[in-house]
Structure formats: structure tokens, C-alpha cells
């Protein structure tokens, strides 16, 4: 198994909403305002209003991620993206991330495992490929890079 860079996605996020589930345990909800993506043989934009990121922050500051939104390729195909992920970071890094400060992305572990639902045709390989993603938070949004497992 090896990893091959397949997709780069830049999104800008709206305000973060919170669901306080229990002491120290919060589900965040951040809707995507806009975004674009590109990779070998594929490029397009994120469909506005189609979804967001829903991180679950645990009392220890670590967390799990769920995200779901829709991509639209430049040639008009719609692709549903769903992803789960893990974040693990020292408490001081978590505090800075939650305050939306700029944080060196090498100072925390954040890996995603996205899945795609694509129409039959040139993008159907997305329906049978496992991906590994790395996220980088910055004040205006997030940059995700997805590698396909080959």
C-alpha cells in the first residue's frame, strides 16, 4: 500500500455553532461558505449550503470529525463527500485551534478518511478508492489534501 496525492480542497467556513453534549464534550457545527478543489483529472467547487464539518471535541481536547457536503466538478457532475477523522493534539494546541489562531499543522495529528459517491463515468473510480486526508486549519478556513491508497 502506498499513498498518491489525489485532491486538494480549500474551504472557507462560517461561524461555529456548538452543541454541549456533556461536561467538556461538545459537538461543533461549521457550515461551508465556499470552496474549491483540484487534482489530477478533476476540479470544481464545493456546493454552497450543501453541508459542513461537525467536530466532536472530547473532554481531553482530542476529537472525532464528521463532515458531509457536495462537490460540483467543472464539467457539471455532483459528488457527495462524507468523511470521518481523528484529531489528537496537546491541550495547549487544542486551545489555540479552538480559538481559531494560526497553529503549525505539524504540531497536531489530524487525519481524515473521506468517501465519495460519484456518478458512473470519469469519476466512478472515487466510488471504489480509499483515501487518507490531512487537514490544515487556518483562520479563514481549512485546507485538506487527500491521498488515494494505491
Amino acid at each position, binding site marked *: 500500500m502506498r499513498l498518491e496525492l489525489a485532491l486538494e480542497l480549500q474551504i472557507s467556513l462560517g461561524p461555529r455553532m456548538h452543541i454541549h453534549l456533556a461536561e467538556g464534550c461538545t459537538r461543533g457545527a461549521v457550515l461551508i461558505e465556499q470552496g474549491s478543489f483540484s487534482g489530477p483529472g478533476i476540479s470544481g467547487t464545493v456546493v454552497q449550503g450543501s453541508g459542513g464539518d461537525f467536530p466532536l471535541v472530547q473532554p481531553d481536547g*482530542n476529537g472525532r470529525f464528521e463532515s458531509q457536503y457536495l462537490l460540483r466538478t467543472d464539467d457539471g457532475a455532483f459528488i457527495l463527500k462524507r468523511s470521518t477523522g481523528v484529531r489528537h493534539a496537546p491541550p495547549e494546541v487544542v486551545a489555540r485551534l479552538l480559538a481559531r489562531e494560526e497553529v*503549525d*499543522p505539524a504540531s497536531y495529528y489530524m487525519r481524515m478518511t473521506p468517501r465519495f459517491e460519484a456518478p458512473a463515468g470519469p469519476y466512478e473510480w472515487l466510488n*471504489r478508492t*480509499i483515501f487518507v486526508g490531512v*487537514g490544515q486549519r487556518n483562520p479563514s478556513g481549512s485546507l485538506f489534501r487527500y491521498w488515494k491508497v494505491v
Partner: protein
Amino acid sequence: MTRPGEAPTPGLAHAFDMEVERGKPVEVGQLAIGGRRSHIPVIGGRFTGEGMTGRLVGGGETLFARADGVTVVEAVYYIESAAGWLARAFGNGYRTTDGDFIGTRMTLLFEADQDGPLAHLAASAFLAEQLPGSPLVSISRIV
């Protein structure tokens, strides 16, 4: 190479080999959503890696054989370390029988007691691969 301020490039580090003993499949049938649903219970097995050995104490692989020939696998494995600590591995992926890759690949996450010695498993994502004819599921930590 990762430049300063740029997110790291992920890698794979082999973590565990797991041998899964599977029970008799249960066939649900052809579903209206366009595929065949079945389930294979996990009845035992062994794992070794990262300085640990242990056994599988349960779980299952739920399959959805799609019309495009790809089977979606949703898996749960309960592992027990030799010292008696439990963890739940769960995830999903694809089983393919043609194309560039033939076999099963899944991503897995773990849950374990937060104060126990397996808690670190919950802090990473993992990748699992099983090749046709091989008894082993090879599990790599996504680093």
C-alpha cells in the same frame, strides 16, 4: 518534503497483523437500493503487533455487494490484549475483484477505555488491507 507551516504528508506504518476467524454468512437478500446485503460474524481470531498480542472476541463484517461489482464492507472487530484489555475497531471500505487493486481495503478507528493501556489506539486512524487467499488482515497506522 513538508515546508514550514504546511500540513504534513501522511504515511503508513505497519501496526498489526490480524487473523480473522469468520462464521457462517447470513444472507439478507437483494435490496431495493441496488445491491445484495449479507453479514459474516467474527467468531475468533488473533492479532499481533506494536508489542502486543491478543485475540478477537467478536465482531462482524456487513457486506453490501453493489451493482458496479464493488462490495462495501462495514466491519467491527473486538480485540482483547493478552492482559485482558478490550478495544473496538470499526470502519468501512471496499472489496474489489477487478481493476488496479484486487482485495479488501478499509479504514479503521479504535475505541478503548480512556484510562487503559489501549487508549492510544483511539488517537490514530488506521488502514487495513486483506489480499485474496491471504489469512491476514494487515493494519497500518496512518501517521
